[in-house]
């Protein structure tokens, strides 16, 4: 079905350029709007006027409005910015992976990041950070998740590359094997864990922006920003790759360079997002699909549009996460799927209706 949509949309790219530009502008406006609304929504009831007043009075709290200033400047603002980056990185990473693997089922997890991050994070939760704990303190977990993800991608890339050529199919299969191995080791750690650790693992693997802070934004954010800024440069290459590796090569594309760059960008962006917010599923696979249905498969529009819509989806899901169970908080991974899946199904059904006409 999506293979068909790829084929269809690449024939009418001419028509879609305007649609693509329009979609980008609309999505950017929608993102700004969502972010503003998001700043006013939360378990603490602050009127929009109060939020604006606190924003204008700056991050330095006076004794009188200490609590509200902390809520707006220290909790909501870094959380919204971090949420935008996490959503954008995951969705854009998904679009890159689907382009690279030429497979609509690819997601950022295929680069091995998620399984490696999960294994490292669970190891820290169950076994403790060892000497890392004394240096990094509460940073041990995000640190381990980030480098665990990168290490497993590096391993996967080495396995799939011989004589300077990366076999994408091998990478896919090796990714499944490595994922199973990491899953088994994670399972063993789960067996060793006590009740509290088990619940920590569950919460971490459902994702959440509850740990958002300016410090986390300054450490994980730049990596995600760099990955996001680099990805549009791969758009033309990925468009050529739709035709096939050999064909792209004969179009003058350095296929190997494209693969390497895409994998590095996805691994860095995804690992940083996992370090920032745990595992948030669904965004990476569904957002690019939605947009392929709407704006077509041209990566020049698909990549930035995915980033924007990914950010919007995370912000909306996080608003629900913060308010639905207030004063407690729901894991965001549940909500991205609850919000995204029915919409996606509806789109698929509608589209099927069209193609049958």
């Amino acid at each position, binding site marked *: 079905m999506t293979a068909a949509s790829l084929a269809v949309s690449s024939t009418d790219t001419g028509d879609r350029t305007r649609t693509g530009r329009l979609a980008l502008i609309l999505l950017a406006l929608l993102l700004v709007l969502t972010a503003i609304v998001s700043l006013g929504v939360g*378990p603490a009831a602050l009127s929009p006027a109060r939020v604006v007043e606190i924003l204008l009075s700056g991050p330095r709290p006076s*004794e009188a409005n*200490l*609590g509200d200033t*902390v809520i707006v400047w220290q*909790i909501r603002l870094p959380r919204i910015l971090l949420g935008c980056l996490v959503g954008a990185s995951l969705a854009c990473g998904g679009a890159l992976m689907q382009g690279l693997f030429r497979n609509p089922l690819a997601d950022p997890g295929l680069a091995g990041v998620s399984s490696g991050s999960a294994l490292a994070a669970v190891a820290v939760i169950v076994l403790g950070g060892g000497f890392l704990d004394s240096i990094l303190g509460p940073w041990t977990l995000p640190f381990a998740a980030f480098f665990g993800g990168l290490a497993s991608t590096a391993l996967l890339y080495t396995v799939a590359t011989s004589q300077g050529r990366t076999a994408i199919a091998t990478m896919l299969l090796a990714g499944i094997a490595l994922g199973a191995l990491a899953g088994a080791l994670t399972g063993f750690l789960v067996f060793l864990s006590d009740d509290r650790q088990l619940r920590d693992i569950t919460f971490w693997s459902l994702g959440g922006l*509850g740990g958002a802070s300016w410090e986390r934004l300054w450490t994980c954010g730049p990596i995600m920003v760099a990955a996001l800024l680099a990805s549009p440069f791969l758009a033309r290459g990925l468009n050529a790759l739709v035709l096939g590796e050999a064909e792209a090569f004969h179009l003058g594309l350095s296929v190997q360079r494209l693969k390497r760059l895409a994998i590095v960008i996805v691994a860095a962006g995804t690992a940083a997002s996992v370090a920032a917010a745990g595992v948030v599923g669904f965004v990476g696979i569904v957002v690019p699909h939605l947009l392929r249905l709407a704006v077509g498969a041209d990566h020049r529009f698909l990549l930035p549009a995915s980033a924007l819509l990914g950010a919007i989806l995370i912000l909306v899901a996080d608003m629900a996460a913060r308010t639905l169970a207030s*004063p407690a908080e729901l894991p965001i991974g549940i909500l991205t799927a609850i919000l995204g899946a029915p919409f996606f199904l509806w789109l698929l059904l509608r589209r099927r209706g069209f193609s049958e006409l």
Partner: protein
Amino acid sequence: MRFPVLRSLSLALALTGLAAQSASAQDPKRVVSIGGAATEIVYALGEEKRLAAVDTTSLYPPETKALPNVGYIRALSAEGVLSLSPDMILLEDGAGPPEAVKLIDAAGVEVVHVPAGHSVEALPEKIRTVAHALGRDSDGNAMASKVSTDLAALQKELGAVKARQKVLFILSLKDDRPLAAGEDTAADAMIRLAGAQNVLAGTKGYKGLSWEAASALQPDVILMMDRGGEAHGGDAFALPALAATPAGRNKRLIKMDALYLLGFGPRTPAAARELASRLYPDLALRQP
């Protein structure tokens, strides 16, 4: 925002200063209690009217259900807690995540760390900490010494025991697989307080056992929670592996309320005494 990093750093410093100033707040009016034992102590002191919210591990007394709930002890939401405008948060050790606690602290809420743990020493310390935070030091001291005295008295009475009973604590029989308590669990601590021996000592935490292993441990008594064995109509000895143990032959199954048995709060001395008197019926222990 030209130097955002510096700015947020100086902000953090400024906030820490402010928090330190307000930390001397006496007589807190709105308290959020995180942790089952801490909440139970607040009730035992008769200070429940100050509670603004509790967490999901605060299940006793049942009235806690009527209070707003801020979620699981390890997954607190900073804004969720702050939205209740508390002036104090009682935080059992292990509560988190640390980022949320830091933000709650930065917002000027007094954060009181209550020690956790299942030891004879930790329990009075918990009580004193909570009582001090609520400005009820003398009542707290009295309650803490009573707890210590009661536990010591029980130990003394149990000194007469010659043959220590071997106990297997089964947390649940879900899916026909026993989940049993090893060391470092509240159940293990209670078994020892009641003068018995945990057959699964040497293993840490709650572990799934095979039936063969459960049978080979040869427990004298099976200890379960009131609602741990629905799978077999509450009859654990319907399972052949358990029926073959000394406990099964003598039909010795003790069931106790989960929160009473494992809560490690003010009711723990009474729970330990009840368990001990059911383990050693011939000893004629004083009833709580």
